[in-house]
């Protein structure tokens, strides 16, 4: 059978692979190469070695964006996952209206980042109006504003995954623990948490990469104001490319560093949480 299928490569695999080459492989290889070049467009590149990578570290906006993004990622991953898990625990108790609540909490996920940014700009500026401030008054407002926005958007999504995980725990396991005299806290710590570890792996992976790569919400909510102080990495890279002439090479080098950081975080996180997963 394999032989019969093999001849059909041009029909089955080629369209996707050709598009994948245009949309990913070629841009990726060219991107890595250009990070070692000085250029204004893809056809006028001259090789300059590690110069771009050295110039990055003299750019204060990048260093600031790196810290800002890291701190944002830590806070948002913790808040989103803890709240989503708590909501999921409460919504699996079989109370009235569970389906409606689930529907409501999930809805913000379907709204795009740009639109979410402008919705929350209105709300948060409206609240800050009482104190004669705006979101762009200081980068701390932008920071907590984005945290609130991301929680509002993502809790529903993670909650859905946690609910599926909690419902997968075999009932006998909980019964057995109860008969053995486990109280609610012990039940949570020694039965529920280890059993939903696969969900925790997925949710922390998704929130981690979503937060670290955040762009649309950042652009719409504060656009990096005041003076690039609420600018996250993705926006910083965009502004280096398209806002500063002569910095295209540095922008591409930043993008490579950004990619390596995302890959590293993803691998370390998966290793860390996978190792805690158990079998029933």
């Amino acid at each position: 059978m394999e032989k019969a299928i093999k001849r059909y490569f041009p029909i089955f695999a080629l369209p996707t692979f050709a598009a994948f080459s245009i949309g990913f492989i070629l841009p990726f290889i060219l991107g890595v190469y250009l990070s070692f070049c000085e250029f204004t467009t893809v056809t006028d590149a001259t090789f300059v070695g590690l110069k771009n990578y050295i110039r990055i570290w003299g750019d204060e906006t990048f260093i600031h964006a790196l810290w800002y993004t890291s701190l944002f990622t830590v806070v948002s991953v913790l808040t989103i996952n803890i709240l989503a898990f708590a909501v999921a625990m409460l919504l699996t108790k079989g109370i009235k209206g569970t389906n409606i609540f689930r529907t409501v909490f999930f809805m913000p996920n379907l709204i795009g980042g740009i639109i979410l940014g402008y919705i929350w700009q209105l709300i948060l500026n409206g609240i800050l109006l009482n104190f004669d401030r705006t979101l762009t008054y200081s980068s701390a407002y932008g920071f907590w504003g984005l945290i609130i926005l991301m929680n509002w958007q993502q809790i529903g999504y993670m909650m859905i995954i946690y609910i599926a995980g909690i419902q997968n725990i075999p009932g006998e396991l909980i019964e057995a623990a109860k008969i053995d005299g486990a109280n609610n806290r012990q039940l949570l710590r020694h039965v529920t948490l280890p059993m939903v570890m696969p969900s925790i792996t997925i949710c922390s992976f998704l929130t981690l990469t979503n937060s670290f790569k955040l762009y649309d919400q950042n652009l719409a909510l504060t656009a990096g104001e005041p003076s690039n102080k609420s600018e996250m990495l993705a926006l910083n890279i965009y502004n280096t490319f398209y806002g500063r002439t002569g910095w295209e090479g540095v922008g591409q080098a930043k993008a490579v560093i950004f990619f390596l950081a995302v890959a590293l975080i993803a691998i370390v996180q998966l290793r860390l949480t996978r190792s805690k997963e158990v079998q029933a």
Partner: protein
Amino acid sequence: MTNVRKAKHGWALTLFFSLLSIAYVMPIIIVIFNSFKRKIFISNRPFQLPDAKSFVGLENYINGIEKIEFPRAFGYSLFITVGSVFVIILCTSMCAWYITRVKSAITTGMYYLFAFSMIVPFQMVMFTLSKIADILKLGNPVGIIIVYLGFGAGLAVFMFCGFVKSIPLEIEESAMIDGCNPLQTYFKIVFPVMKPTAISVAILEAMWVWNDYLLPYLVLDIKKYKTIPIAIQYLKGGYGAIDMGAMMAMIVLAIIPIVIFYIACQKHIIEGVVAGAVKG
């Protein structure tokens, strides 16, 4: 005994979640009533309901639709999303079946490349991808579908491969013995079995493409073609001044189709998210 206790807690929880749900949809409700208010009242008194003085009827809607040609943006968004999702489902599922069934160094390499592409952030390829798309004249609503197939292939192929591995070979073999060629086998036997995975992939990809901002912004010729997120961001203008009236009205128009779609396909969306998370 436990039932009685559960019911007591249940009512308190239902009440708590009802209030929380109302708080959760509040931002959207505030945007809706602000969309009927005069500009100045939106930024100065965002939490006040429209009254005789601030009410402007549909002025913001008419104004906004004129400014960003909303119906056209909606048309482009719809065309690009439906087209991309259709092409992605068709091409990547065929590709996934091929690379799972035909075992060679090339197909294994392709599989790992697809999986690898999932962790690469868009910023890594944004500059080179937009230049390549420009050279290949893909900056129109049809061309961008090829870009989406290429950049979105990773997740889709990965999910389909996971499913194909679970389909027993015997069914396909007996179809081939009965005289089906691989194309017939695929469309008559394999694809119908893959339907649940196809729905998951379609939902995840549709959520991404519909809300995507940066990729179409860089790839499309945005003087001619604006999708909804690009049109909304365009309202901000070059000088940071936002027409809040038009912004609120356009946000409402952008959200309405999403909410209708969500209510109609809620079950599939939530199941799709869970299935996608488990396999991703």
